[in-house]
């Protein structure tokens, strides 16, 4: 097979993947008050990684982003379960969330909620599962 020249696709991917990842992080943090959240944030990050996979190959992807996506799924599940179990330490039912206002330097007064920790778990699980499915399908001959 003739070697093809993908310079346009690869150059555009370099710019576009940053925009997609930034937008997915925005969706992730916006989830509490506006449409968004862990699930579509994770799917969108996975979409950016799939775009990188499309324009480069699996070997290059493993070199620039050496994640073990199965382990990422496990870590996400662990974070979600630990967030839920952390409520038991304060003598309240399982999955009780709490929030408070904190003064963070640079950001000012923000309300931090433990639901974000649970969302991080969902985010990591969604990325991990999507990338595992796509990479295992792509690797089989």
């Amino acid at each position, binding site marked *: 097979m003739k070697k093809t020249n993908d310079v*346009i696709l690869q150059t*555009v991917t370099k710019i*576009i993947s940053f*925009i997609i990842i930034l*937008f997915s992080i925005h969706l992730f943090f916006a989830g509490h008050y506006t449409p968004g959240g862990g699930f579509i944030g994770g799917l969108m990050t996975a979409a950016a990684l799939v775009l990188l996979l499309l324009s480069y190959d699996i070997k290059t992807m493993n070199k620039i982003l050496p994640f073990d996506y199965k382990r990422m799924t496990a870590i996400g599940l662990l974070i979600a379960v630990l967030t839920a179990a952390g409520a038991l330490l304060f003598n309240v039912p399982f999955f009780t969330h709490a929030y408070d206002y904190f003064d963070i330097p640079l950001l000012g007064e923000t309300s931090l909620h433990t639901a974000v920790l649970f969302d991080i778990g969902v985010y990591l699980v969604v990325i991990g599962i999507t990338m595992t499915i796509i990479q295992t399908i792509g690797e089989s001959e």
Partner: protein
Amino acid sequence: MTDISDILIILFILIGAFFSVVTAIGLIRLPDIYSRTHAASKSATLGVMCILIGTLIFFLTEEGFFNSRIVLGIFFVLITAPVGGHLISRAAYNAGVKLWDKSIQDDLAKKEQFEKEKEGSRY
């Protein structure tokens, strides 16, 4: 509120809708895949961008809030739609889709022929 902003919003949305219709007509009427991707990637991009600009001005003037996601969307469509058209037409050419029978020039085929002859003379 009938100001200049309203006229601008109506103008942008109408231009965008018009270019979308032009794209649809072009997709039906044009003869081969290359002229169709020309119609689809060019005027659809402009149409969608005009509609997004109209939406941006609408929310900026009526509700007074600057939606940065629309700006990001305009930028995104501007970058990706032409590349999508390019990749579709290149894939079609590599798959051997014929040009329109009235087209008179195919320089890419000539170049590939030339390279093949050069390879042949080397060995």
